């Protein structure tokens, strides 16, 4: 079993807490894990990605080869398209539909979403909307993780356990709102896959 995930977004959007939660879920299942992050200059509002690899066998490269990713999980729609060369045939593109516009020449959102919908397998979810509907605006990144969770060979309970461990020290309320976000994202993906 092996799952390669490209996590994508803009510096400051919280893809590293998604990565940390997946990491915990993987450890919970005694899986091997490698996760390459971007630190430094790009974190200042630039395009950022994290290469996450989970396997029941030892993993060689920290970087996912092009054409090999099982999932692109993006918290921003245009950023989801930037890594398409990494997606393998039959891989899932899972993206938030709310754009993060911090450049003057950001394309029309409808055109961006049209490109997303050209993919054979995609989930396009308005994570920001779902997050505010469940009363937890800041959990949109965890909604996204929930929406991608069906495509991992990891049980949903392991992701829940990951949430408890990552957010545990921030208190019961934060844990519960993130669990709610995770479930809402999962539900959306199950209905729309």
């Amino acid at each position, binding site marked *: 079993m092996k799952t390669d995930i490209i996590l994508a977004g*803009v*510096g400051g959007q919280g893809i590293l807490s998604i990565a940390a939660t997946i*990491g915990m879920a993987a*450890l919970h299942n005694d899986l*091997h*894990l*490698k*996760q*390459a*992050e*971007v*630190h*430094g*200059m*790009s*974190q*200042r*509002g*630039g*395009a950022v990605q994290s*290469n996450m690899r989970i396997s029941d066998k030892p*993993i*060689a*490269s*920290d*970087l*996912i*080869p*092009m*054409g090999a990713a099982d999932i692109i999980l993006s918290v921003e729609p*245009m*950023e989801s*398209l*930037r890594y*398409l*060369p*990494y*997606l*393998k*045939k039959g891989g899932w593109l899972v993206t938030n539909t709310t754009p993060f516009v*911090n*450049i003057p*020449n*950001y*394309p029309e959102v409808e*055109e*961006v979403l049209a*490109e997303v919908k050209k*993919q054979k397998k995609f989930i396009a979810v308005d994570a920001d909307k779902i997050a505010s509907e469940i009363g937890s605006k800041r959990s949109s990144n965890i909604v996204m993780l929930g929406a991608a969770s069906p495509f991992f060979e990891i049980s949903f309970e392991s992701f829940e356990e990951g949430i408890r461990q990552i957010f545990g020290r921030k208190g019961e309320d934060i844990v519960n709102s993130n669990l709610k976000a995770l479930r809402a994202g999962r539900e959306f993906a199950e209905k729309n896959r």
Partner: protein
Amino acid sequence: MQKLLLLGDEAIAQGALDGGMSGIYAYPGTPSTEITEYVQASKFAKEKNIHSQWSANEKTAMESALGMSYAGKRAMVCMKHVGLNVAADAFVNSSITGVNGGLVVVAADDPSMHSSQNEQDSRFYGNFAMMPMLEPVDQQEAYEMSYHGFELSEKFKLPVLLKVTTRLAHSRAGVQTMEQKAENEVSLPSNLTQFVLLPSIARKQYKTLLGIQSALEEASEESKFNKYIDGSDKSLGIIAPGIAYNYLMENFQDKELNNPVLKIGQYPIPRKQIMKMIEECDRILVLEEGAPIIEESLKGYQEAGTPISGRLDGTLPRDGELNPNLVAKALGFETVLDGEIPELVRNRPPSMCVGCGHIDAYEALNESLKEYGTGRVFSDIGCYTLGALPPYNAINSCVDMGASITMAKGAADAGLIPAVAVIGDSTFTHSGMTGLIDCVTENSPVTIIISDNYTTGMTGGQDSKALGRIEDICKGIGVHPDHIRVFRPLKKNMDEMVQIMKEELTYKGVSVIIPRRQCVQTMKNKKLAEQLKELNLK
């Protein structure tokens, strides 16, 4: 002993803590910063009183670590690759003084320049200083090399250079820790002139350093970090140091690798294994994450003329970091891609944060300089370097830490008056102060803007040595108090800011202007909030 999920940087830190380190010294620099931060956050380090505070720059860090080694204890010093340029004087000479307590120097290289001005390979420095070097393949080896690095250093009485690159530094994986070792006791060097590099002593010790080289080579040949993996297909032999070995193996996940492979993790280059490969293989492919150092040196090992490919003959690109696809191409494997990037995808370069004080300072500066025209602003290394990008287009140089002040001086000497320098608070105490002395002693007509945000911003908000000290430092160096001007960079203060800048731009001497406002990224930092309250700063 436990299994931890660690970044490569954190694995180095944990290895050092478990290996009996008594102090770590560093100036923040991507991708090395997290090593020191890990020690700073470690409860164990706090209990044991292990030194972990930031140094003013890489040179002071290197020297302090050497001092701790003199006193018999194990020390580590960490920096990014270009930081080793700053520390180079102390670094190169430290292999002539040698060490007392084990000393591990960590240089984190940044091929592809994700967050750097160049992609120099620190192994050049290791060769230059003739000291043993370690280059880990993964997080586990990073841990073990750090852990055993102190012993290696004490065995040969030399510092050890541990080199990593961005990918490993910032990638997380499981690491199995080893038994905790005790720290060394304080002890003087057995020879009290060992660290006195008077010519007469240095000549002698340099000969010792030269004499020990064959022993270092033997240690490499015997090292568990260097592995010769036999293969039946001798038409090609592959040399893969450090993380390149992983990219090689990634290409053989579902097929067999039958070629001989030499994985290198310890330098000097293991001659015995290299000779074996030259003798038994028809052709050699060298996969190096950094510069073609092994590739170039192979020529010196052989008369046979075994063809060598790598970065020099175009088999791999001459610049940039490696990845599994580049290695696949070098091996002659085809990569079939399904998707491509749609045309509408735009670049999203990094930018200064919304609400950043540097932005207001640049807007005031651009306005103030209108009457003089563009092209006279020298800047430095930090978040404010992003002022080079639109819409600001505010600066004309970014070379090395501290170069803003001294380049402005040189330009002013040439007649470009006024010449302006823009430097951050932490960069100023790193390497700007000495340049300011040059300006003051000649009363150069330069306007120096020290954009003070109370932190080392670009690397993630580490302590700034300049906190609460900038005016005193400038006065002490000799800047006239009338020409040290402070303001709060905010849109509503624009008129005042422009007025101050215009006044100082006409002054034919050294002016220091300090736009001062807290970095928006540090607003949640409680320790800093307390310090600012104490200093009555906001």
